[in-house]
C-alpha cells in the first residue's frame, strides 16, 4: 500500500461513489457551481467514466448575481468538454426583481438559490444530485452521510440517516424522494488544492490575485462586478490586488487582499492564515447551527 497516497485513496473513493450512482439511480445530475470543489468533482467524473463521458448532465443554479467570470468560465468548460449543461434560474424571483441589495442576503439566497434548486429538481425529476460539499467545511456537514436522503418536500432529517457501511451504499428511494450525493465528503480544503495542483484542474481565474475594483463594506471587500451594485454615499471603487477563497454571488462574497497568483501561492496563503474557509460566505455566519437548520429546509 506504500504507493497509494491519500489523494489516490480519496480519488478512488469518489470515483466509486459516482459509478454507484450512475449504475443504480434514475436520472442523476451533477450540480455544478463553477467553484473549485465543482471543478474537482467534474474532473473526477471525467476520470470515473473514461473513455465514456459522464452519463449525466451538469446543472448550474444561476442566481443571476454570480461573478461574470464564473459564467464565462462555465460556458467555456462545457464547450471544451462537450457536456450537457442545464442552467436553471428562478424566473418568478427574476420577475419580482429579487436580489441581495434589494431583499437582503438571507431572502435572496432562499429564493434564488434554495427555492430555485428545489424547482429545478422537481422540474427535471432528478433522482440523485451530486454536490461538492465536504465534511470539513462545517459542523453539521461532518455528520451528514455521503448519500443524503431528501423527502418529497426536499427535507433532510438528521436523526434518521441510513447507516453507511463499508462502501455499500443503499440508493433505494420511493417515488418523489431524491438523494443528494457528496462524493467529496472526505476531502479537506487542502486536499482539494493539492489535487487541483497535481491534476492540473482548470479553475476560475477569480481564485488568483489580480487588480480588481472593490469597495469595503463592514470590513468586507466586495468586488463591483457590474453596474447593478448601488454605491453608498462616498463609496468609490478602488483597484486592489485581491482574490477569492470561495465563490458565489458577488455581492455576498468577500475578497481577500493578496498577491498570490499561482497555485502554490494560494496554498501557501491558505496554510498560513487561520481563518476557516466559509467565513468569506456571508450566509452562515449568524449562528453555529444555522447550516443544520438550512439543510433541514432543503438547502443543498
Amino acid at each position: 500500500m506504500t504507493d497509494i497516497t491519500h489523494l489516490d485513496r480519496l480519488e478512488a473513493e469518489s470515483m466509486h461513489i459516482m459509478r454507484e450512482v450512475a449504475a443504480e439511480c434514475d436520472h442523476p445530475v451533477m450540480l455544478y457551481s463553477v467553484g473549485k470543489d465543482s471543478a474537482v468533482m467534474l474532473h473526477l467524473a471525467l476520470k470515473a467514466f473514461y473513455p465514456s463521458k459522464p452519463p449525466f448532465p451538469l446543472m448550474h443554479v444561476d442566481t443571476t448575481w454570480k461573478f461574470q467570470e464564473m459564467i464565462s468560465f462555465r460556458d467555456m468548460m462545457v464547450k471544451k468538454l462537450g457536456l450537457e449543461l442545464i442552467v436553471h434560474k428562478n424566473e418568478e424571483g427574476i420577475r419580482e426583481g429579487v436580489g441581495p441589495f434589494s431583499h437582503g442576503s438571507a431572502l435572496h439566497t432562499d429564493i434564488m438559490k434554495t427555492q430555485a434548486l428545489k424547482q429545478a429538481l422537481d422540474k427535471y425529476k432528478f433522482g440523485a444530485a451530486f454536490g461538492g460539499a465536504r465534511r470539513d467545511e462545517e459542523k453539521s456537514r461532518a455528520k451528514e452521510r455521503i448519500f443524503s436522503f431528501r423527502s418529497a418536500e426536499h427535507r433532510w432529517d438528521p436523526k434518521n440517516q441510513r447507516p453507511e457501511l463499508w462502501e455499500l451504499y443503499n440508493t433505494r428511494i420511493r417515488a418523489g424522494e431524491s438523494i443528494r450525493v457528496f462524493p467529496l465528503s472526505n476531502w479537506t480544503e487542502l486536499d482539494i488544492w493539492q489535487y487541483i495542483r497535481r491534476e492540473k484542474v482548470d479553475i476560475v481565474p477569480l481564485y488568483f490575485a489580480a487588480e480588481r475594483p472593490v469597495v469595503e463594506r463592514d470590513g468586507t471587500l466586495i468586488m463591483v462586478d457590474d453596474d447593478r451594485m448601488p454605491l453608498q454615499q462616498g463609496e468609490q471603487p478602488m483597484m486592489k490586488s485581491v482574490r477569492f477563497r470561495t465563490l458565489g454571488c458577488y455581492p455576498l462574497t468577500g475578497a481577500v487582499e493578496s498577491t498570490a497568483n499561482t497555485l502554490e501561492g494560494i496554498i501557501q496563503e491558505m496554510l498560513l492564515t487561520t481563518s476557516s474557509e466559509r467565513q468569506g460566505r456571508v450566509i452562515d455566519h449568524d449562528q453555529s447551527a444555522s447550516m443544520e437548520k438550512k439543510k433541514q429546509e432543503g438547502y443543498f
Partner: protein
Amino acid sequence: MAHLDALIETDIRAYLIAHEHNSLLRCITCGSVDDGTSTLIGRLLDDSKMSLEDQMEDLERDSRKSGTQGEDIDFALLVDGLAAEREQGITIDVAYRFFSTEKRKFIVADTPGHEQYTRNMATGASTADVAVLLIDARQGILTQTRRHAFIVSSLGIHRLVLAINKMDLVDYSEARYKEIVSEFESLAKHLPGEIDIQAIPLSALKGDNIAGLSDQTPWYKGPSLIEYLETVSVGDKRIKAPFRMPVQWVNRPNLDFRGFSGKIASGEIRPLDRVKILPGGKETQIERIVSYDGDLQSAEPGQSVTLTLKDEIDCSRGDVIVAAASPSEVADQFQAHILWMSDKRLLPSRRYLMKVGAKMVTATVYKPKHRIDVNTLEKRPAKTLELNEIGVCTLTLDQDIPFDPYQSVKDMGSFILIDRMTNDTVAMGLIDFALRRSGNIHWQALDISRDMLAEQKDQRPAVLWFTGLSGSGKSTIANAVQKRLFSLDRHTYVLDGDNVRHGLNRDLGFTDEHRVENIRRVANVANLMADAGLIALVSFISPFRSERNMARSLMKEGEYIEIYVDTPLNVAEERDVKGLYKKARSGEIKNFTGISSPYEPPKTPEIRINTVDTSPEEAAETIIKWMVDKGFLDL
C-alpha cells in the same frame, strides 16, 4: 505538526511535493461520553492546528454557554456537530474528522459509546484501519470496554490503541496503568479476530502523550498517540490476497470499446493476467487497464480502474473479476454474523434485499443460531435480533454469488440488508462461510452422481448424529447400531470424537472456538460420506446447538438424524468410564462439558435415548426401528 512546518514559508513547492506522498489512515475512536472521546479528537485537531481561529472563537463562546469545563475550553464542543448534541452534551451520530501531520492524513470516525449506539460504532468501524479505545483510568475496564473491543475485532480491525485516559485524575500512576493493561490483555484473548494492542497512558484534557511524550509519565517510553498513528502499518493483507474486483459499471462509449469499471477489493492485476468472471466462471485474460491518464501497467487494492478483457465474454454489473488461479467461492447459502440496525426487529424467514459488492439479491434470513451478548461475549439463544443485537444466522439467496469470507477479503464478505418496503438499511452482515456450494465453479463436475453411488450400495445415505455428555454412552450405542447395520449388509462408518481428535482434529483444543471448528470439520466429513452413499455414525459431544444446526443445514434435507443420548450429568459422572470427570472436578481438565463448559441439549432431536433404563442393545433396536419406519432401511 504539518502546519508549523517551516517549509510552508520558505519552500511551499517542496512542502506540497512531500505532502502529496502522504498516506491515509482511517481510525475510529470508541468510548462513552465520560471517557472523553470528543475531548481527545478536539485535542488532536488542535494539536495539529486544524481548528482554525474563527472556529476557536465560536468554541470559546459555546464553551462559556454550554461547556462542562468551567473557564477552560471544552474541546468536546468542537466535534459534537448537531445542535441537539451540543445542547445535551452527547454524541448521537458518527462524525468524521480530518487532520494531518507531516507523515499522514487522518480521517477519524467519532462514535458514541452507549449500547444503544452499537450500530453507529459498527458503522464507523467498518471503514477504519485502526481503533482507538478509550478507557477512563479511574473506572478501568467496564462492560462497555468489552463491547467496544468485541465490535472492532469482529469487524476485522487488527490494530487497537488502548488509550488509558484521564491519567491526570489518578496521579499518573504507573501501577494503575499496568493493572488496566493486563486486565485488557486477558480480555483480548477472547476476541474473535487477531488483534495487535498498543496501550498508551493519556490525558486528553491536559494533552499528555498525545503529540509528544509527557513529563508526567516518565515511566512510559512511548510512542505518543500521534507518533503511533503516523507510523502504524496497515493494509498489506489486502494486497497479498488474490485479485478481486466487483464490476460496478460496464463502460461502453462506442461499439469498439467494452470496459469493466470497479474498485479493486484485493490483490494486484496486470495486463495478460488470467482471470475468471464469476459467478459464470468463464476464463479469459486482462487486455488493458484503462485510465484517464493513460493505460496502467498494474493496479492494486483500493484503486478505481477500468479493465478490458481479451475475449468477448458475458460480464455485467454485480459480476466479480477474480484471479483465475484462485477464484472466490460461489454459493447461495451462508452462515453470517449479522448486526441488526433497525428499530423493527429481524423477522426470520422473511425476504430482505441484500447488497453485496455491486450486486443486489434477495436473501432469506433464518432464525438466529444464537445471538452474542456484546457485554459478556456469551452466546445466548435467540428467536430474532433486535436493534443493536449481533447474531449468527443462515442466509439463503435467490441466486449464486461469488464471495470470500469477511475475515479474508472484507469487501468480498460484507453485505447490507435492506427492508423491501421501507428501503431502510436494517442490518450489516459478515459472511463466515458457505453452507451449500451449488454451482460452485471449482467444484469439479463429476459424471458419477451421489444418487448413483447410493444406488450402487442399494441403500439410502444418512448421518446418525449422536450427541450427549461425555460418558453418556454415545460411542457404545453407535457401535451397537453399526454392528446391526453391518449384519444387514449396509455400508457404514463411525466417526468418533476421540478418534478424530487423534488425526484430522489433532490441532484443536477444547475452547468454545475449537469446539465449533471441531464440529464444522466433522460435519463436513460426515456430509462427504453421505455423498459417497454411506451411512455415517457421528459420535461427538457436540455441545452447542448452533453447531449441530450448522451440521443439519449442511446435509441434504432429512439426511441428518439427531440422536440425543440423554444421560443425566450425575449418572455420567458416576460411570466416569475414562476418569475424566474426576480430573475435571479437580481442575486438572479445563473447559469440560457439563462441569466447566456448557452443554445445550437438543430441543427436538429425531430420536431421544434415555440410557438410565435402556441397555445399548435396546437403544440400537430403537434406532433401527426408527430408520425402518422412516424409510431408511428395508428389512
